[in-house]
């Protein structure tokens, strides 16, 4: 691989790759990340063996990709240029796919996606895909994330080269401000404003941090982006570093994501070899390099001050703000922390312009949002939709609705900091403000669908158990507030509820919310409050039923 010496070199390199690219091959894209769990590796191997056996090397190309989204059909593959999507593929299907689909152009019905008894072989006709708008996920599932050339062929690093040649750091900050991009990690703080304050902060040394500590149960957007398109995150970080004046960056990734760490390592190494990371990038005076930091299993480290403590090698406990990391972050230096998805949005904004980006989404929330759709829904998977898409469109049109003869009851949005959105809000156009108005939060994008067999009191108890376990114990309201709320919720679910419990829960929730030090405690009561708001009858019922329940259930477990 050669070292690129000027921004023009990148373009020349891309053209040389284009010239080498074969256009007459059939390409089979196989998800080799999430789908691994259900046998994707075996399928890949079977294809390679078969290709060797039949000497089809120049005719069929296997591309191991990141997540293609429709995880429920895992292991999945897409065949181009035919545009065919197959799911639940096993090794034994491989010879038939080659002989029938690739060589004769026939569809294999049993592998096709089906809806309402109809087989849909083509990607473009599958509602799960056709209703989405892929901006951030445009490469995810259609390139090999372990090969930088494939990213460059898709205009990768072109936005960064453009920024480096044509734009001053101030102009970069303004472009992001103008795009309306807001933090995708949950709180929705305007990214441009954050960049501006770090840019203006005093100090020679500044840091850029990518927060990939995706800890919300039920969220896997960041995992998919890091695994499927790691260079997009690196490019976003490069642009951010240039804008704020940082030479060093960290990517903090959860330890539970080994494939993401592996792909990032490869991506960083390849970017260094090409001269896209390191000293005097593309022959300019701009230098920047990246280091991966692996989390060690603490949910609270997703909070930015806790994350900083963890990078510094300490117990990952939050501290009061101000000072904000923008002025005093890692080792007391100005630090810009953005989420994985936020960084992945950056290159496309510079490629197409903030004017274009602003046309997508709602008045207050621009662009798209990736959701991890899971729970009691037919099409579990990864979806990207414009802000303002309704919950109904996500759950029914894209998600295919609720399996079995069950009914939609609620969607849990925003994980343990979020809330349950009931059926009456199905037509709510989703953006940061609307979701908050109905008692949930956008959060990082976990969206768990619950059917009518789910007990909402039990869900509230479940999230409280999670928050209580993950509470770092530094501040009293969170440490004790979550514990007391958990005690009450456990009591109610075990048929020991008391009449005054609902009032007590609300009171405790209010105190924990207002008095806790960081986001974990401030939002820990949200699942309780939203379930009380929409499903108070279930609480009442659980409390009143206690006589009958106690006789049915086991006695409460001793602490």
């Amino acid at each position, binding site marked *: 691989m050669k070292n690129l010496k000027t921004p023009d070199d990148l373009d020349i390199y891309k053209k040389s790759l284009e010239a080498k690219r074969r256009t007459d091959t059939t390409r089979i894209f196989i998800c080799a990340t999430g789908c691994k769990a259900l046998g994707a590796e075996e399928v890949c191997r079977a294809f390679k063996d078969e290709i060797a056996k039949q000497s089809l090397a120049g005719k069929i190309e296997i591309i191991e990709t990141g997540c293609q989204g429709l995880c429920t059909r895992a292991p999945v593959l897409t065949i181009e240029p035919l545009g065919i999507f197959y799911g639940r593929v096993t090794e034994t299907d491989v010879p038939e796919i080659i002989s029938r689909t690739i060589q004769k152009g026939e569809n294999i019905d049993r592998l096709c996606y089906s809806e309402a008894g109809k087989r849909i072989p083509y990607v473009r006709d599958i509602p799960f895909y056709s209703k989405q708008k892929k901006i951030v996920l445009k490469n995810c599932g259609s390139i090999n994330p372990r090969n930088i050339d494939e990213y460059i062929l898709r205009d990768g690093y072109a936005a960064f080269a453009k920024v480096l040649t044509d734009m001053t750091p101030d102009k970069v900050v303004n472009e992001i401000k103008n795009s309306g991009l807001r933090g995708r990690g949950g709180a929705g703080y305007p990214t441009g404003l954050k960049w501006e304050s770090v840019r203006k902060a005093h100090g020679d040394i500044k840091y850029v941090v990518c927060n990939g500590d995706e800890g919300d149960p039920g969220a896997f957007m960041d995992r998919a982006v890091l695994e499927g398109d790691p260079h997009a995150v690196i490019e976003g970080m490069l642009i951010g570093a240039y804008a704020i004046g940082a030479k060093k960056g960290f990517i903090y990734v959860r330890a*539970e994501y080994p494939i993401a760490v592996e792909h990032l390592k490869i991506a960083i190494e390849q970017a260094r070899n090409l001269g896209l990371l390191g000293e005097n990038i593309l022959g300019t005076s701009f230098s920047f390099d990246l280091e991966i930091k692996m*989390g060690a299993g603490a949910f609270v480290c997703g909070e930015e001050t806790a994350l900083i403590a963890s990078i510094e090698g300490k117990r990952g406990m939050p501290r009061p703000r101000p000072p904000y990391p923008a002025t005093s972050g890692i080792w007391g230096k100005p630090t810009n922390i953005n989420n994985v998805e936020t960084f992945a949005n950056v290159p496309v904004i510079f490629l197409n312009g903030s004017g274009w980006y602003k046309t997508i989404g709602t008045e207050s929330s621009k662009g798209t949002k990736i959701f991890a759709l899971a*729970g009691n829904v037919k099409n579990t998977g990864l979806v990207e939709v414009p802000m303002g898409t309704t919950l109904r469109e996500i759950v029914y049109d894209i998600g295919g609705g609720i399996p079995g003869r069950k009914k939609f009851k609620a969607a849990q949005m925003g994980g343990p900091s979020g809330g349950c959105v009931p059926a009456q809000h199905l037509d709510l156009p989703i953006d940061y403000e609307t979701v908050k108005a109905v008692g949930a939060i956008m959060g990082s994008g976990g969206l*768990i669908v619950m059917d009518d067999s789910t007990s909402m009191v039990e869900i509230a108890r479940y999230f409280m158990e999670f928050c209580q376990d993950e*509470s770092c114990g530094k501040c009293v309201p969170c440490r004790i507030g979550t514990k007391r709320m958990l005690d009450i919720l456990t009591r109610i679910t075990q048929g020991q509820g008391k009449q005054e419990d609902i009032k007590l829960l609300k009171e405790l929730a209010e105190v924990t919310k207002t008095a806790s030090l960081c986001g974990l405690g401030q939002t820990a009561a949200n699942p309780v409050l939203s379930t009380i708001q929409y499903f108070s009858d279930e609480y009442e019922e659980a409390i009143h039923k206690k006589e009958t329940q106690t006789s049915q259930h086991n006695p409460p477990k001793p602490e």
Partner: protein
Amino acid sequence: MMHKPVTASEKSKPMADLTKCRDILAKCTSATSADLIPILQQIQDAYGYLPQNVLEEITARVRIPLSKIYGVITFYSQFSLEPRGKHTIKVCVGTACHIKGAPDIKKKITEVLHIQEGETTKDYKFTYEPVACLGTCFLAPVMMVNERYYGKLTTEKTEQILKSY
């Protein structure tokens, strides 16, 4: 955050061989406190847990007091001061798994292995721990044994899987 007190048995534990630890430390000559977590992660990978005499070696080399190192270790759930089983079972207790039956899977594991969450079987074959979310909700309910995923579990399937090890 679960705190893991050092038990009396800790003190009587055999000394671990320091060779692997010295190899790891040799690679980080200019180690600062920021390198502590990565060093501990490598030590745990190499030994399966964090033996006390190895920690004493680290404290001498990186000049971080043992008390501080202990503070870091007990904060993060990834670290273990106790020897662990040959196989680690991680049961996902994320939201999607929870509503699709993870509590029954947990009950089954306890029933089959006679250990609670966070414990290791007497023969050091299995360590069983719940994990907040594996990020593979489409496999719900799911567990991992070492690096291998087992998805769409039922209690019967869980028992079979455990018995296959």
